[in-house]
């Protein structure tokens, strides 16, 4: 089972197992990782599952959709490696992916 390492803004780490096919956001919420909210349940319409994906993983992800980049455009604390984690479905190749979390989702 692939794993995801979430790192909260305060440095606390959460290494969790992820089901293939499930999104990174849903995996965080199911494992009660603090710092990811996912209010809209994965519809790409709330930007409360914002995370930073380390560069070495970024090119293994599917490119951003127009909706995602539009949502991120209006989100807070955005950096060049920002993603909405509800738009990243887990695949075996993503085993070990590191997702850092912003200081706040709102």
């Amino acid at each position, binding site marked *: 089972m692939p794993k995801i390492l979430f790192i909260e803004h305060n440095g606390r780490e959460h290494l969790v197992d992820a089901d293939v096919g499930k999104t990174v956001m849903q995996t965080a919420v199911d494992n009660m990782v603090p710092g990811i909210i996912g*209010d809209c349940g994965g519809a790409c319409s709330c930007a409360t599952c914002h995370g930073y994906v380390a560069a070495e993983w970024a090119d293994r992800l599917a490119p951003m959709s127009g909706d995602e980049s539009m949502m991120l455009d209006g989100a807070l604390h955005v950096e060049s490696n920002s993603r909405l984690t509800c738009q990243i479905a887990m695949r075996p190749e993503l085993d070990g992916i590191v997702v850092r979390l912003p200081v706040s989702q*709102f």
Partner: protein
Amino acid sequence: MPFSEPIYWDPYSPEILKNPYPAFKRLREAAPLYYNEEHDFYAVSRYADVERGLKERDTFSSVHGAILEMIKAQVQMPDSAFIMQDPPVHTAYRAMLQRVITPRRMNGLEAQIRAFCARSLDPLVGSDRFDFIANLGAEMPMRVIGMLLGIPEEDQIALREQTNTVLRTEAGKPMDVSLSEANMGGEAFEDYIDWRTTHPSDDMMTELLTSDFKDPGGNIRKLRRDEILSIVTMIAGAGNETTGRLIGWTGKVLAEHPDQRRELVKNPALIPQAIEELLRFEPPGPAIARYVARDVEFHGHTVPAGSAMMLLVGSANRDDRRFVDGDSFNIHRESRPHLGFGHGIHVCIGSALARLEGRVALEEVLKRFPEWEVDYQHAELASTSTVRGWESLPVFVGSGRPAAAARVTAPPAAAAAAAPVSVEGTWNVVIKGPTGAMLATLMLEWVDGVLRGTQSGQGSTSPITEARFENGNISWVNHTTKPMKMKVEFKGAVTGNTISGKVKAGFAGSFAFTAVKQL
């Protein structure tokens, strides 16, 4: 059955409205799928079930809206009333609006919101009371929506009046759907839209007027005037009363948790998590309704297609299965998503704005009034089937606070002994009644060697009788008429400018009281 009384909940009963949480708890434990015969609706109350109801949008349809009365009337709204639509119609409008109401745009209003709070609160500094609703919560949200839309200030108050009247229900009664349908057009915004069309700016309205919109049919076009009208009316209705209620709950809940309030004064960095906990603990929208589009099973029972389903967010947010000790208010609680803004595709689009308004309002209140106590005698809970909160929440601040008075009742012994003992004057009386502190004002004077006076409280004033003051002991009788006719006998010891003693209130029993002389 573990409970002796039948389990009952509806969104209208004024008694349940006061404190729905015991009923919610019983629903969660003994009737996780509940059917109300009188009003013909189902309700789920556990976190997992409410979340499921909000998530499974094909089963729990929004096509007749999210308000019980509208669902039962099977109201059909135009496409642009997208809150009351399912995908793909909902998706098209929501996506459009999402581009316009971004968290960044909402958070950009912080300085304006803070300035508004300061204008509202500064004149109150130095007084002994204010009202969380009348002085702040009633006006602020519509002003902020106005700021977002770019509406001139003088038009903003009229807007609030219009949207609130539509959603208000009479105590104990369902909403009049015909009234709300007729008023959903939002005439108040019409002039503004027309004016903004010819006076473009960088506000949200201009963006709604000029942005490309991919409609549900896939055509790229601009929003029509009637669509914009219905969208902004909905936004105003959704964001106005709810945010006002959040501000009211902030005043009420923190008054009851003074230790946590003191922490917030000391460390304002905790305020965002306090607002989050308030949204969990007292969500302004405690119930969201859906139309059941196909048979669905909960806890071994089938809810038939065509039913109305109430998703009890207020109950889910206190479910011990999700939140440790869910009925307790704790700003240090481990942060975990709650359902206060709903969940899924219809989740509140303005949540960032509501959080911002709640945070700024609380910051500005605490800066000026670090402590307050609620004047429950004059506080009033509002009744609607969708929103629950204070219509009026007056509080005592500064020297007006009973606790401030109570603290003075234990002055340093030397100071008390040194103070002149004269009972003439005006006293702030605090009775530690069964439902909390009750306040009264006592006026005493000597007339021809006889102690006389009047006592005011509970909205009435009456002369006192049988007043005596001998050897440091004082006693008097007050015949109250409100809230009921009762003979209330006070006996206490006077020490300097304080009195403490017992009050016997007819059949209601005996309670401690203190009084402090106004100097």
